[in-house]
């Protein structure tokens, strides 16, 4: 074995120092057994970076393996920088969603910006040009003093990075709940397009191949970022600001162009971006995946600051950096391209046959470690878990709402979770690249693929309050709703990326949420043939011992053969028949109505019947693609009447609705959140034909009214003017952000 330097000024490795690096005593014991001696400080840092939750998935891995990851469209499932699916015509869609929760809470602008930068890099590392971004944001209660600051910073950060990089941010979701006080969630998704036969992977191949460092210089920012993201917050969260990286979208845009250029020139054998745990993680992954060793010479690493130690260089999370194995004969050509884009280019190491990870600095060996155990053979836990007791059903008859239907609708439509998020998405360039067919604000975004006619539908979804009440049903519902949103624009859902945000997995009840949600996701993905191709797990989302709501964000991709056939949710003309697809039982438990109007968060969430989901969705998609449905919208938060209102506001056109059936309390009929439902409008003359199709397909379709007028009308209720609804809908967020709602 090589003689490993401990460094002249290195501190002694004490139990305290080990604990500071987030390694548990049993993990440290395992480390000692692996290397047979006390680690150097650099080695301790490397282990801490690789074995933390964020990089190793040690608590979730055994459960993640139960997710369905294969399907006829899947080219690459989880385990690479991003998932890859075949979308036909020789093209592949590359996509992934990832969290940047902890950094965004500490430093919202840079935290969110580098979250976008990181996920974009994951996508273009694989050879894809990014064509769209989405996000899923969860903030604390509107009344919490920090919330407006976080909203403003996170939104500006996402926009600041994506707009400058030049990718349209086409969709997403924003929610508020007091359980995210002190721990907001920023989940960013990127989608790219590549030629199916030109996908690039991380696994190095060949011994003695030069390893090249590309992109920006290494600085002292983000050291221990991944470890920070693997611990809970206490009162000292602000003190962790130095662990947040600083983004440079300009460098990333240049890096994108340079990478795509050298890939097109056939220079690249393997490529891995430097994300969490920077140089350490990227080098280890390239070697471990290729069953090779890696030797790095840190004297060659381009640095932004003088006198950086090996420890700092190995743990820096400076952004906009890549590691590659290049074809030796193409090295000069690649270097010229990088120089043209004003980026650093340096050979910093080579592949070896030894399966050791060796780091040299100043002529000394600072680390000499087994590469497989650092990477794909990192520790795994089967943590104990308990599933929470299923909450009791809440009978609608037992609920006495304080408001009538019309008042409730006007309040709900202007409530934080249901109101328009225009204030947010207008800060994102959502039209750049000239392919955005459906802009934010619909069920799913639709982007044209190259010059068409193919389009991709994209959506992110999850209903955390359902997951909290029943992790299994909530996991199912997140997938089903995403599938439904893609279907509602006429797309065939193909695959998902999952971003699982939970609290501290060392608590059995949190682990129970994680396990339950994963089981639900797996069941729904199997039933809907909607495999998981990439994902990310973010644990320890707790502040002072209080966990966030379980939030498994699902990002879905669907394809539509002719984007001009995609449906939008706005009513199209007066006199059309409004059809409700799916069964309405008036499920009020865990509904937004119950929470916002009755101030109660209780009951079991609506169950998801996956067979019905599939049948109803396939029925609606066919109506859209056959040109029969003139508008389509899925039903979710807020139920039937909120969905009707959204369709009406989209067009500035009202509707005359039929009264609620007598066997369901009115409020439950209008605001219950039964699943597997859609609204479509059809020309009145075609309604009969639709009923005939429905009978044939055994799908429940009910005519619930007719479009027209300037208000929503229901027998026995006062009219709800579309202009008033719009005012409420558009009004809340701008007023809140302007500080005009002191009691929000």
């Amino acid at each position, binding site marked *: 074995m090589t003689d490993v330097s401990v460094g002249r000024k290195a501190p002694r490795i004490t139990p305290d120092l080990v604990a500071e690096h987030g390694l548990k005593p049993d993990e440290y014991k395992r480390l000692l057994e692996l290397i047979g001696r006390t680690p150097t400080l650099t080695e301790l840092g490397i282990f801490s970076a690789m074995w933390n939750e964020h990089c190793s998935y040690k608590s979730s891995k055994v459960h993640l393996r139960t997710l369905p990851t294969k399907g006829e469209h899947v080219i690459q499932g989880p385990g690479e920088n991003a998932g890859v699916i075949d979308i036909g015509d020789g093209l592949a869609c590359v996509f992934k969603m990832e969290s940047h929760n902890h950094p965004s809470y500490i430093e919202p602008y840079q935290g969110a910006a580098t979250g976008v930068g990181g996920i974009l890099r994951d996508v273009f590392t694989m050879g894809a040009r990014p064509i769209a971004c989405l996000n899923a944001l969860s903030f604390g209660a509107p009344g919490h003093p920090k919330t407006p600051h976080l909203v403003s910073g996170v939104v500006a950060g996402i926009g600041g990075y994506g707009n400058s990089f030049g990718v349209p941010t086409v969709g997403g979701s924003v929610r508020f709940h007091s359980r995210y006080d002190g721990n907001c969630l920023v989940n960013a998704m990127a989608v790219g397009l590549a030629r199916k036969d030109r996908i690039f992977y991380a696994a190095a191949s060949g011994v003695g191949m030069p390893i090249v460092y590309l992109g920006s210089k290494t600085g002292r920012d983000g050291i221990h970022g991944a470890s920070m993201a693997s611990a809970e917050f206490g009162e000292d969260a602000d003190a962790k600001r130095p662990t947040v990286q600083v983004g440079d979208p300009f*460098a990333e845009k240049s890096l994108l162009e340079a990478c795509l250029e050298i890939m097109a020139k056939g220079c690249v054998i393997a490529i891995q971006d430097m994300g969490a745990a920077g140089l350490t993680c990227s080098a280890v992954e390239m070697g471990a995946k290729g069953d090779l060793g890696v030797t790095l010479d840190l004297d060659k690493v381009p640095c932004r600051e003088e006198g950086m130690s090996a420890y700092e260089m190995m743990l820096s999370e400076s952004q906009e950096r890549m590691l590659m194995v290049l074809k030796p004969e193409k090295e000069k050509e690649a270097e010229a391209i990088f120089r043209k884009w004003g980026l650093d280019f340096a050979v910093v190491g080579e592949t070896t046959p030894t399966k050791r990870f060796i780091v040299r600095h100043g002529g000394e060996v600072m680390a000499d470690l087994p590469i497989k155990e650092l990477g794909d053979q990192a520790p795994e836990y089967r943590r104990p878990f308990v599933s929470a007791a299923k909450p009791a059903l809440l009978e609608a008859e037992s609920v006495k709402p304080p408001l009538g239907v019309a008042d409730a609708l006007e309040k709900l439509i202007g409530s934080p979770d249901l109101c328009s998020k225009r204030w947010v998405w207008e800060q994102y360039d959502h039209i750049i690249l000239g392919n955005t067919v459906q802009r934010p604000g619909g069920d799913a975004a639709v982007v044209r693929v190259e010059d068409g006619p193919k389009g991709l539908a994209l959506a992110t979804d999850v209903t955390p309050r359902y997951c909290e009440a029943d992790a299994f049903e909530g996991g199912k519902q997140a997938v089903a709703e995403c599938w439904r949103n893609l279907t509602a624009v006429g797309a065939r859902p193909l695959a998902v990326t999952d971003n699982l945000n939970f609290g501290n997995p060392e608590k059995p009840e949190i682990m129970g949420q994680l396990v339950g949600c994963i089981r639900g996701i797996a069941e729904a993905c199997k039933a809907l043939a909607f495999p998981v191709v990439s994902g990310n797990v973010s644990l320890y989302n707790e502040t002072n011992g209080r966990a966030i709501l379980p939030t498994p964000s699902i990002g879905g991709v669907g394809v539509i053969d002719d984007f001009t056939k995609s449906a939008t949710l706005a009513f199209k003309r007066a006199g059309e028949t409004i059809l409700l697809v799916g069964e309405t039982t008036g499920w009020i438990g865990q509904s937004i109505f119950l929470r916002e109007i009755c101030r109660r968060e209780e009951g079991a969430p609506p169950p998801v019947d996956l067979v019905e989901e599939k049948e109803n969705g396939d029925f609606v998609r066919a109506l859209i693609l056959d040109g029969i449905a003139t508008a389509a919208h899925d039903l979710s938060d807020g139920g039937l009447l909120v969905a009707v209102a959204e369709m009406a506001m989209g067009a500035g056109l009202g509707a005359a609705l039929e009264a609620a059936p007598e066997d369901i309390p009115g409020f439950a009929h209008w605001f219950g959140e039964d699943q597997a439902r859609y609204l479509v409008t059809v020309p009145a003359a075609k309604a009969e034909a639709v009923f005939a199709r429905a009978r044939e397909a055994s799908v429940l379709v009910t005519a619930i009214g007719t479009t027209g007028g300037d208000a929503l009308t229901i027998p026995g209720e006062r009219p709800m003017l579309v202009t008033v609804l719009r005012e409420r809908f558009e009004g809340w967020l701008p007023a809140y952000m302007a500080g005009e709602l002191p009691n929000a």
Partner: protein
Amino acid sequence: MKAAVLVFPGINRERDMARTLRLISGAEPAMVWHTETALPAGTDLVVIPGGFSYGDYLRCGAIAARSPVMDAVRAHASKGGLTLAVCNGFQIACEAGLLPGVLMRNARLRFICRDVFLKVERSDTPFSRGYNAGQVIRVPTAHGEGNYVADAETVARLEGEGRVIFRYVAPDGARDEAFNVNGSTNAIAGIVNERGNVLGMMPHPENHVEAAVGATDGRGLFAGLAEALGKAA
């Protein structure tokens, strides 16, 4: 029409612009890297596209305005060559001295991506001949620093000489500060230089040229240019 689209590091709407030029003129534009010192022979339209050249670091457009290729652009413009500068391009053109004034942070301090309504003030320029004077067109904006500012004398000259080509208005064409998306002086969205051969504008006509993706109100600008320059050329 023989267009040259300039490419600076950090520019990101050059592909949108190239696609639109191709779609409407039928000719592929040349993409010209910022270190070039000459434009391709026969260039009759220079386009400075949108984006974030050099990350908008220092000041928007300030670094790009000093790129080698800009000398060639100034020479082209001084000979009366047509130059279209959109968004970051407008900022670069101002910084390069091709147009007067400066683009400041939006009045509400936030980046805004939204369709806006522009009144075409006159139709007797190569850039606006595809429209009728007084016509209102809908095109998108996407910028954080598009608030046009110049000293009172310059603004008076621009107005007096009829050099304001596009102005932010309400959908019905009325002047209304609520529709002045970024707070620009006199709701100015686009101006030409003294000679009328350099147009700078903040909105993105190149993103509204296809009915299936947005709208088609941007077509007039490019169709007019193609006509002015002769499609076959």
